[in-house]
């Protein structure tokens, strides 16, 4: 997995590319904790190029959501591929995450 970070308005955008699974979820965990440390408040996880996620990956997204919500911040997702959308629906995650169709929509969140 590749994580590309950029800044837009009050958001930090993390573009994820490739696979988020048991072998590499620690990289995203580290990045999220680092942004918390830097007192960033609003995060967009852009999944346009994320092809695959397993329960290990979902665990980290859930951790991020909980931590940012606890700080009254935003932790939103956008551009989910169809297969990943299905996983979010099966797990019930669709109803607890704010998920947007595009990065532009997410920026207005």
């Amino acid at each position, binding site marked *: 997995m590749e994580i590309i970070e950029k800044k837009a308005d009050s958001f930090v955008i993390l573009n994820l590319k490739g696979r988020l699974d048991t*072998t590499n979820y620690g990289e995203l965990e580290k990045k999220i904790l680092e942004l918390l440390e830097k007192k960033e408040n609003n995060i967009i996880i852009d999944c346009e190029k994320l092809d695959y996620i397993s329960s290990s990956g979902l665990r980290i997204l*859930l951790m991020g959501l909980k931590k940012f*919500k606890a700080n009254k911040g935003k932790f939103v997702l956008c551009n989910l591929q169809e297969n990943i959308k299905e996983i979010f629906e099966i797990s019930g995650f669709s109803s607890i995450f704010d998920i947007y169709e595009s990065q532009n929509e997410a920026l207005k969140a």
Partner: protein
Amino acid sequence: MNKKDISIENNISELNKLQLEINKISKEWNLSPKISFNLNLAIEEIVTNIIFYGFDDDLKHIINIKLFLEHNKLKIQIIDEGMEFNPLEKETPEHIDKPLEERDIGGLGIYFVKNLMDRIEFKRDKNKNILTLIKKIN
């Protein structure tokens, strides 16, 4: 009938090799991206469980993954010599409908497998766990 065998050690770094093999087989068998995704996910969840919880020693163990393509179905067999574990006995996680604060994620992997596959069978045979997953394909 087409048949493929993959063997990996009980080490998380082996998942990379596993994933490459599955993608290669998916291509060779012309599986749709969706079926390939679900196949990757089901196998990762089961194998991760085996690696994390299956053994109480530090020894090297082999996990066998056999794939069969027959007519309109895909059969996956995952065989390990770890402690007895029947995922079918694992209940659906309670937290699926719970609000965020109460959510934990235990059991979600197995829940995915049950949802994405059409049939699951478990057998304990000669100290081995044999888990068979069936996925219908068109």
